[in-house]
């Protein structure tokens, strides 16, 4: 794994027994000795700690005022940036000219600048994209010296509040800056597991002490990428490069909740983003295909790549994410099907080892979310 980058906390993961595998150019812990199933269930019942420092952290600092920056950022996403108030975070998507998705991200208004977190595999391209399009309105600062730690689950609030009591007052998608033992913590009440929890950006110098202070609490266990994937799948959340990519539009992907009124037809700043013709048309007329939740019958997981068919044999699409849901105690999946097959309860088939087996289109999330709204 010589050409792979290492996380700042690499040695700690090895000490904890993490099994390190290549992911998005990094050596990442895929699981610890407890294993994927126990790690998943621990996150749902107590608190799981995830090192997501491979993700890209970017600050957009305005050159000509926040309004110009927000409007510039809005040209890259079908999302209301200007309407996001200070101290709040929002989900966003960079779209391309054909209405596909270049990356999905979180961005926060921190008063005099925006803080953005993007996917690891896309971060170089995202920074180039931001510099190319926002050069007149923003300084694009890529932060390479901060770890990013997610703390997720019903015990997350108590675990983080043991170090920083004030975080208990935060609501879902609030952001704040807190001081802990000389380290400046950038905290958001969010995550990607469907659970209440936090993501904390911490300077690399203070990261090990911070993580050890959390792991020192009985309720907190380290969780690898394996359980991160099963948790987000049960929560119905998209994984970039799998469930969404440059060919899928936000409307097909069922991410219309991320497109606020202001950017839709008739809104104050309708359109004006990359791919607007397709996206606005799909909002008006409905998309041709839709990302749906799927519940395979029986216990056999159906994973990414499994081909989907109508019961009459018509090819429909493919599974984009799938596996066994430890909290659902059954296999769960998501994939794309034509809109006429997207209704909850529709029975279709997936081809597994040469056999066509039934799946039912199902509501997502597969496991109820517990965000602290």
């Amino acid at each position: 794994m010589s050409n792979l980058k290492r996380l700042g906390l690499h040695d700690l993961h090895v000490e904890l027994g993490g099994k390190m595998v290549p992911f998005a150019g990094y050596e990442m812990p895929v699981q610890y000795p407890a294993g994927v199933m126990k790690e998943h269930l621990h996150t749902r019942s107590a608190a799981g700690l995830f090192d997501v420092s491979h993700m890209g952290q970017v600050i957009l600092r305005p050159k000509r005022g926040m309004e110009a920056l927000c409007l510039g950022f809005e040209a890259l996403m079908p999302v209301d940036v200007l309407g996001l108030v200070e101290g709040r975070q929002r989900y966003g998507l960079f779209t391309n000219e054909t209405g596909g998705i270049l990356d999905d991200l979180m961005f926060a208004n921190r008063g005099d600048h925006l803080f953005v977190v993007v996917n690891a595999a896309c971060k170089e391209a995202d920074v180039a994209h931001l510099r190319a399009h926002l050069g007149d309105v923003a300084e694009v600062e890529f932060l390479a010296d901060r770890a990013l730690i997610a703390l997720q689950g019903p015990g997350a609030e108590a675990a983080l509040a043991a170090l920083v009591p004030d975080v208990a007052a935060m609501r879902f998608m609030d952001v704040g800056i807190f001081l802990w033992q000389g380290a400046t913590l950038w905290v958001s009440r969010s995550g990607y597991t469907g659970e209440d929890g936090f993501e904390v950006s911490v300077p690399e110098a203070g990261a090990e002490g911070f993580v050890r202070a959390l792991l020192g609490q009985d309720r907190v266990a380290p969780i690898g990428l394996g359980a991160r994937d099963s948790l987000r799948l049960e929560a119905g959340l998209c994984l970039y490069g799998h469930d969404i990519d440059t060919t899928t539009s936000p409307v097909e992907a069922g991410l219309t909740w991320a497109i606020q009124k202001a950017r839709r037809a008739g809104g104050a700043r309708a359109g004006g983003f990359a791919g607007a013709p397709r996206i606005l048309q799909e909002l008006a007329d409905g998309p041709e295909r839709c990302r749906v939740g799927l519940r395979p019958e029986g216990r056999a997981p159906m994973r990414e790549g499994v081909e989907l068919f109508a019961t009459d044999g018509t090819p429909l699409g493919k599974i984009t994410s799938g596996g066994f849901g430890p909290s659902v105690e059954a296999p769960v999946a998501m994939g794309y099907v034509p809109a006429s097959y997207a209704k909850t309860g529709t029975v279709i088939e997936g081809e597994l080892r040469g056999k066509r087996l039934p799946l039912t289109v199902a509501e997502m999330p597969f496991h109820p979310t517990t965000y602290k709204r």
Partner: protein
Amino acid sequence: MKYTEEHEWLRIEGDLVVVGITEHAATQLGDVVFVELPETETVVAAGDEVVVIESVKAASDILAPVDGEIVAVNAKLVDNPGLVNEDPTGSAWFFKMKVDDLDVLDQFMDEDEYNDLIG
């Protein structure tokens, strides 16, 4: 007990060969969530895929170690796939085979040789 390079263990029980996977294999697979067993009375050739195992991480197969006939399968694994992780070398056997000549097992590794393989 004999061992294959595919991380199966083979145990002689009367005139039958009992087949399971090693603790090393079970650990590598991770939590097993699904097991598909063959029909009994299936005649198989060495190398045939006879069992499908799905863990939280991935799907994998168990191959027939030798030519023979499947005469029994462990149906408990279908309802409780986690047994493969809990007791891989004991109650979590997968199938029993009838073979022409038990000497066919001589080709496989003994415990020391297998332990050398997995280092």
